C-alpha cells in the first residue's frame, strides 16, 4: 500500500515533468491547451487524493523520506491535518486557475514565457506545504519564489514590470534569508534540520523571540504584512491575471502556512507578548492595506492592496489564537485559529474570483485603469454578475462567506476580556476596532471597484466594442462564485472540516457544528451567539420575492425609459461622472492625513482670469519612505564608498589579502 504522501509526490513529479515538456513545446499552438489541461487534471487529482485521505482517516500523519538533496540528510515530506488543509486550498486554487487559464491563456501574447513556469509554480507551492525538514522547506520556498518571479517577468518589455520583478526578487531573497536564520535558531547547536526534531527541542525565550521576529520578516514579507508589503502591489498585478490570482489568492496562504507551521507547531508554547505583536501587526496591516486599496485607480493593484488587508485580518486572528494559547484557553484559541483558517479559505475563493474578473476585463478592453472603464455591466453581464458576488463576499456582507469568517473573528475577540495580561486587554479592543474599520472600508472600496468599472456610462470608446469572454473563464468564475455562496450559507460544514487542522496544533477544536439544528454555527452556546447563514439567505430570498410578488400583483406595471436628471442639462459627457479618485476623495480627506500624509492644494486663478483652477494632491507611501528609501540609500552610499576597491593594482590586492589573513589569525588567537 503506497502512502498518501508518496502519491502526492508522484503527482508533483508529473507537474514538474509538465513544466519541462511545456518548455519544449511552448511555442506550438496546442501548448496552451495542453499545459493548462494537464495542470487541471493533476491539480484535481491531488485535490481528490488529499480530500479522500482526510475523509477516510482524518488526523493520521503520513510521512516519507526521499534520498534526495544533501547526501547525509535526505528530503523529508509529511502530510498532517494542517498541511492537508493548505494542500486543499492550493490545489483547489490550482484546479480552478488552470480551468480559467484554458480560456485566458489563449489571449497571452508571450505564452512561451508563461507556460513552463506555471506548472512549476504550482508544484513549488505544493512542495512547501509538504516539506518536513528545513532543507526541503527552504528549497521549495525558493523554487516557488523563483517560479513566480519568472511569471512576473513574463511581460518584461514593460519598464514597470521589470522594476516590480526586481523589487520582488530582492524582497524574496531577504525573506528567505530571514527564514534560513529562523531555521538555524530552531535547529540549535546540534543542527538537526528535521521538523520532527525541532518540534521536540524547546528553544529558550530569547531564541523563541528571535525566531518569531524572523518568521514575521520571512513569512510576513511573502504574505504582505505592513511594512514588508511594498513589493506585493507591484508584483502581483504585473503577472498575467490568472497568475496574479494564484499569487494573491494562494501563494500568500502558503506564506501563512509557513508562519503557522513554525510559530504554532515547531516553536512550542508561545509567550503572551507574541500575541500582542502579531495582533498589532495584523490590525495595522488590515487598515493600511484597505486604505491604500481605496486610493487606487488600477483595478489589479486595488485587488493586490486588498489582499494585504485580508492578510492583516488573518494575522490578527492568528495573534489572538497565540494569546489564548499562551494563557491555556484552548477553546477560545481554537475559535480564533478556526476563524483564521476559514478566512484563508474564503480569501482564496474571492480573491481568485476577483482577479479572474479583472483578467476578463483586461482581455475584453485592454484596460486596467478603472477611470477608462465604466458601463461594462451592459456589455459583460455574466462577468459583472460573478464579479459582484466576489465584491459582496470580500466586503463581509451576509450571507456570503467573507462575513462568516469575520463573524467568527469577532466572536473570538469577545472571548478575550478573560485574558489576564494588561497589554492584551488594551490591545485587543483596539485591534477589534481596527478590524471593524477595515471591514467597513472594504465595503467602500468594493463599491468603488464595482461601481466605477462596471456601472455608470462608458468612459472610453473601447468599452463600446467589448463583449463577453470565452466559456472557460466564465465557468471558472462561476464555480468560485458558487463556492463563495456555499461557504457562506453552510459555514458549519467548513468549520467541522477545519477541526483536523486545529486539533493537533491547539489541543482543542470548536464544538461539532453539523449537529446544530438547521445548520447554525454556534461557537460557544446558543444563548450567547449563533449565526445561520442558510436561514438568513432564505429569509432575504423569501422577503425579496414576497415584495416583488406583491408589487407585481398590486402595483403599477408601467415603465418608461427617460433621460437621467442633470439639473436641466441633458447629454452630460461621461467624463462628468464620478471617477475612482473623486469617489475616494471624502475618505482621503478623513484618513489620508495620517495614513499617507496627504495634502491638498487648490490653485485658484484670480477673479476674472480665464485659466482653469487646479487641485494638487500630495500623497506619500509612508512605509516606503520610512523603511525602504533609507535602507536603499545606505546601501547605495556604502557601495559608492567601496567602489574604488574594484580598481586597485595587484600589489594592493595582495596587501589587502595579507591584512585580512592577519586579522583572522588575531581573532582566532584572542578568542577566549
Amino acid at each position, binding site marked *: 500500500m503506497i502512502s498518501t504522501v508518496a502519491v502526492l509526490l508522484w503527482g508533483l513529479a508529473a507537474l514538474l515533468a509538465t513544466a519541462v515538456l511545456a518548455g519544449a513545446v511552448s511555442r506550438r499552438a496546442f501548448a496552451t491547451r495542453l499545459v493548462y489541461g494537464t495542470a487541471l487534471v493533476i491539480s484535481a487529482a491531488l485535490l481528490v487524493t488529499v480530500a479522500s485521505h482526510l475523509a477516510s482517516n482524518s488526523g493520521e500523519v503520513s510521512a516519507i523520506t526521499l534520498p534526495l538533496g544533501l547526501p547525509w540528510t535526505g528530503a523529508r515530506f509529511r502530510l498532517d491535518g494542517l498541511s492537508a488543509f493548505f494542500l486543499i486550498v492550493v490545489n483547489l486554487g490550482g484546479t480552478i486557475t488552470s480551468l480559467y487559464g484554458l480560456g485566458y491563456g489563449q489571449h497571452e501574447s508571450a505564452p512561451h514565457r508563461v507556460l513552463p513556469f506555471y506548472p512549476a509554480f504550482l508544484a513549488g507551492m505544493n512542495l512547501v506545504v509538504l516539506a518536513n525538514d528545513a532543507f526541503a522547506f527552504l528549497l521549495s520556498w525558493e523554487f516557488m519564489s523563483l517560479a513566480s518571479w519568472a511569471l512576473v517577468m513574463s511581460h518584461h518589455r514593460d519598464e514597470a514590470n521589470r522594476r516590480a520583478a526586481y523589487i520582488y526578487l530582492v524582497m524574496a531573497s531577504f525573506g528567505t534569508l530571514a527564514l534560513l536564520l529562523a531555521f538555524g535558531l530552531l535547529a540549535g547547536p546540534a543542527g538537526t534540520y528535521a521538523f520532527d526534531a525541532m518540534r521536540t527541542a524547546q528553544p529558550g525565550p530569547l531564541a523563541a523571540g528571535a525566531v518569531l521576529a524572523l518568521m514575521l520578516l520571512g513569512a510576513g514579507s511573502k504574505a504582505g504584512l505592513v511594512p514588508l508589503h511594498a513589493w506585493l502591489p507591484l508584483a502581483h498585478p504585473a503577472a498575467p491575471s490568472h497568475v496574479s490570482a494564484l499569487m494573491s489568492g494562494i501563494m500568500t496562504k502558503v506564506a501563512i502556512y509557513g508562519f503557522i507551521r513554525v510559530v504554532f507547531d515547531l516553536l512550542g508554547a508561545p509567550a503572551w507578548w507574541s500575541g500582542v505583536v502579531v495582533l498589532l501587526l495584523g490590525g495595522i496591516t488590515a487598515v493600511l492595506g484597505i486604505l491604500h486599496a481605496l486610493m487606487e485607480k488600477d483595478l489589479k493593484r486595488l485587488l493586490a492592496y486588498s489582499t494585504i488587508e485580508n492578510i492583516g485580518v488573518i494575522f490578527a486572528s492568528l495573534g489572538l489564537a497565540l494569546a489564548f494559547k499562551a494563557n491555556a484557553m484552548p477553546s477560545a484559541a481554537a475559535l480564533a485559529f478556526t476563524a483564521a483558517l476559514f478566512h484563508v479559505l474564503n480569501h482564496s475563493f474571492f480573491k481568485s474570483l476577483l482577479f479572474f474578473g479583472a483578467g476578463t476585463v483586461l482581455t475584453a478592453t485592454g484596460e486596467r485603469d478603472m477611470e477608462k472603464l465604466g458601463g461594462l*455591466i451592459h456589455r459583460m*453581464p455574466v462577468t459583472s454578475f460573478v464579479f459582484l458576488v466576489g465584491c459582496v463576499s470580500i466586503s*463581509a456582507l451576509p450571507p456570503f462567506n467573507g462575513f462568516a469568517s469575520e463573524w467568527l473573528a469577532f466572536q473570538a475577540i469577545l472571548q*478575550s476580556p478573560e485574558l489576564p495580561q494588561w497589554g492584551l486587554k488594551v490591545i485587543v479592543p483596539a485591534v477589534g476596532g481596527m478590524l471593524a474599520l477595515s471591514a467597513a472600508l472594504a465595503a467602500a472600496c468594493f463599491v468603488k471597484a464595482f461601481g466605477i468599472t462596471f456601472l455608470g456610462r462608458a468612459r472610453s470608446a473601447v468599452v463600446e466594442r467589448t463583449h463577453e469572454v470565452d466559456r472557460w473563464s466564465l465557468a471558472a468564475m462561476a464555480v468560485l462564485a458558487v463556492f463563495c455562496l456555499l461557504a457562506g450559507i453552510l459555514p458549519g460544514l467548513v468549520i467541522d472540516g477545519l477541526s483536523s487542522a486545529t486539533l493537533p496544533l491547539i489541543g482543542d477544536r470548536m464544538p461539532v457544528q453539523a449537529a446544530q439544528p438547521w445548520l447554525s454555527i454556534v461557537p460557544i452556546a446558543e444563548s450567547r451567539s449563533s449565526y445561520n447563514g442558510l436561514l438568513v439567505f432564505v429569509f432575504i430570498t423569501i422577503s425579496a420575492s414576497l415584495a416583488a410578488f406583491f408589487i407585481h400583483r*398590486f402595483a403599477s406595471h408601467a415603465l*418608461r*425609459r427617460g433621460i437621467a436628471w442633470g439639473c436641466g442639462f441633458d447629454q452630460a459627457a461621461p467624463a462628468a461622472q*464620478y471617477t475612482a479618485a473623486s469617489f475616494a476623495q471624502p475618505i482621503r480627506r478623513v484618513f489620508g492625513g495620517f495614513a499617507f500624509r496627504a495634502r491638498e492644494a487648490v490653485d485658484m486663478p484670480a477673479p476674472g482670469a480665464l485659466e482653469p483652477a487646479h487641485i494638487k494632491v500630495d500623497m506619500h507611501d509612508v512605509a516606503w519612505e520610512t523603511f525602504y528609501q533609507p535602507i536603499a540609500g545606505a546601501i547605495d552610499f556604502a557601495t559608492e564608498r567601496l567602489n574604488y576597491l574594484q580598481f586597485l593594482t595587484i600589489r594592493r590586492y595582495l596587501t589587502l589579502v595579507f591584512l585580512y589573513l592577519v586579522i583572522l589569525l588575531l581573532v582566532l588567537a584572542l578568542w577566549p
Partner: protein
Amino acid sequence: MAVIFQLAVQGAQMLLVLLLAPLLIGFVRKVKARLLRRQGPSLIQPYRDLIRLMRKEVVLAENASWLFRVTPYLIFAATWVAAALVPTFAAGLQFSWTADLIVIVALLGSARFFQALAGMDVGTSFGGIGASREVMIASLAEPAMLLIVFSLALVAGATQLSTVAAFMGSPEVGLRVSLGMSAIALVMVAIAENARIPVDNPATHLELTMVHEAMILEYSGRHLAMIELATFLKLVLYVSLISCVFLPWGLAHAGAGPKALALGAVAYLVKLAVLAILLAVFETAVAKMRVFRVPDFLGAALMLALLGTLLLFVSRSL
C-alpha cells in the same frame, strides 16, 4: 401549539414593524411641523405617499441596468429581515438564533452596499456624490456600531439580542459608565445611519447638501416606494434597538402569556412615541453640518464606543 404561538408572535412583530414604519415617520414629521408652528401633513400621509408611488409608472434612466431594478427589492428585504430580528414588544423571538446583533449590523451594511451601487449605476454625478459620501459616513458609523455591539456583548455575555435585552431588563445591570458611553454613541450612529439632521437632511433636494437623497434621485414609482419603505423600516429598527437595549421596561420575555404581550405592545408604542418626539425636538433644535464636519461627529461616536469597550476590558480584572 407553543411553536405556532411563537411563530405567530414572530409574524406579528414582522408585520407590526412594516405597518408601523410609515406611521412613525408621519408622527416625527407632524411633531416637527408643530414645533415650527405649522399644521403639517396628516399622520397617515406617508401611507398615502407610498400608495401613490406604487400606482405611478416607473421612469427608468436610459443607462439603468438590471442591478438598478433589482436593488429596491434587495434593500427592502435586507432591512426587513434585520428589523424582524430586533425585539419590539417581546424578546426571545422564534428566529432570534438565526442572527445576532453583528449580523443585524451587517445586513444593514448589505442594504447600504447595494444602495450605493444603484446610485452609481445611472452614471450621473448626483449618484456618485451620494454614494461616495454615504460610504464615507458608513466607514465611520459601522465600526462605531460594532464597538457598541462589543460593549453590549461584554456586559451581557452574549451578542444574541434577545439575551442582551433580557439581561438589560434584569436588576444585575446596575449603572455603568461604559453603557452610558455606548448609549450616547448608539444615538449618534442612529442619527447618521438614518440620514437625519445634523448629518443629512431627509427633506432637502439641494444638490450640494444631500447624501441619501442623491443616491435615490433617479428612482421613481414602485421602486422608490420600496426604498422609502426600507428607509422608514430602518428608523423603526434603530428606535426599537435603542428602546429594547437601553429602555427595556415592559418588554415581554420569552414564553410570556397574552397579557404580558399586550402590556409589552403598549409599552413599545409609548417608547416609540417618546423617542420620536425627542428626535423631532433634536432635529428642530440643531442645524445641519457641513459634510466634512460629519467625520468629526462620527469620530466622536467611534471614540466613545471604543472607550466604553476598553473600560469593560480593563475593568474585568478589577
